[in-house]
């Protein structure tokens, strides 16, 4: 009886151990979708209602990742992200409506990344990530100087992944370091900047949902 219990215990442990690593074995794949949404709708008016102001600001980022485990606990893949910032400002008098700003700023990024996972339990893992990226941005609309930019860069990120079931997971990630080289053209003048952020962005974290298969 005691021997049967011991065997059952070992079998259970083996199954859990196997489950905990299945998502990170060579040949496994995953995709991940993330998004951040920030914005406001603002309006004000003098109490006599003769001068109203409307301001709208929206900042939306969408990102999609797909990766393939080339060896145990190591995944390689690509990322696509899109960010749009919309700003508008207008005023209305008793006779006229005037729009001062109505501007869209678009940024598109493509990246290649390598993740190294450390499974902690059957549902939890932490990981480190290095990522190389290239991006393009431009703005359009009224009230601001037209700009175009091209940037290349690299990130070092850390994250945590929690599996809700065998396939679906929630992912949290934060950036430890961000280096980018940016070339910005505004009014036919081009300027080049190098940006380096390290540990300053540790307080922001992106949360996404994904599927492993």
């Amino acid at each position, binding site marked *: 009886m005691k021997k049967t219990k011991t065997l059952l215990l070992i079998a259970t442990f083996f199954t859990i151990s196997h489950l905990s690593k299945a998502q990170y074995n060579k040949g496994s794949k995953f995709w991940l979708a993330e998004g*951040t949404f920030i914005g406001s709708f603002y*309006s004000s008016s003098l109490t006599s209602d003769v001068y109203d102001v409307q301001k709208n600001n929206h900042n939306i980022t969408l990102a999609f990742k797909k990766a393939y485990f080339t060896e145990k606990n190591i995944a390689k893949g690509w990322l696509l992200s899109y960010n749009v910032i919309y700003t508008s400002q207008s005023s209305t008098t008793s006779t006229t409506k005037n729009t001062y700003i109505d501007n869209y700023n678009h940024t598109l990024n493509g990246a290649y990344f390598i993740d190294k996972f450390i499974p902690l339990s059957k549902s939890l893992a932490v990981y480190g990530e290095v990522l190389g990226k290239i991006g393009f941005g431009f703005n359009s609309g009224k009230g601001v100087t037209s700009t175009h930019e091209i940037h290349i860069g690299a990130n070092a990120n850390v994250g945590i992944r929690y599996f809700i079931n065998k396939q679906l997971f929630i992912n949290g990630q934060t950036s430890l370091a961000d280096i980018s080289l940016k070339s910005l053209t505004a009014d036919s003048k081009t300027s080049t900047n190098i940006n380096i952020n390290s540990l300053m962005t540790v307080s922001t974290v992106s949360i996404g949902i994904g599927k492993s298969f």
Partner: protein
Amino acid sequence: MKKSFITSLLFLGIMFITNITSKAQFKADGQFVQGSAIINQSLGNNADRAKQFSTSVDWGKYKAKNSANIYSFSLAFQQIAPSTTNSNSDTKSFTIGLGKGQEFYKTLIDKFTMYGRVMGSINYYKNESSSGDAKGVNLNLFGSGGIMYPINQQWLITAQLLQVNVATVNYEWGKFKTNVVIPPNAPRSGNRLEQNSASDNSTTFNELKYNFNPYISFSYGLGVRYIIK
């Protein structure tokens, strides 16, 4: 200062990893009451200096040995004194809120237990400054984490270490006492605008904000929990 935050995070991480299989020890169906206080004080000459005091009373019921349902009532007071380079006046803010959520436990070394919370809350606030007043209502989804230590079988000390703000929807309305800021190229049709911009009119405003951009903030707070037998 930043170094100590990172050290705290690393310490928590190591504790969590080395004790991932440990068990928490609370009895299912037990109830508790908790009182907490958090004090924030930002320092520096060039930044706006904020003082914040918040307190909450929580009632909870353990669902299992390692989780509990939580209901929370909170009050907060904040005063922001502007920096020398900022001409804005002092702002005082008062908030009252109700929350509901769930708490999870993981035993660390000895009697220390790590806890994590996921909460949803609704809050009403009122801001006052010499330039105007505002009122608002917001819905929040957030998490927090910290450590608990039992003094005896009924009393525990809780220490919050960090908070994760996940999503917020905020609606605010109010009144400016100063003139509305008119852009330099604003249309100046008729005399009424000029008359109003020169006079001491007040301006009403309303604003809807949404924010799903999770971030971690370090807020330290101490609380006392009493387990009802």
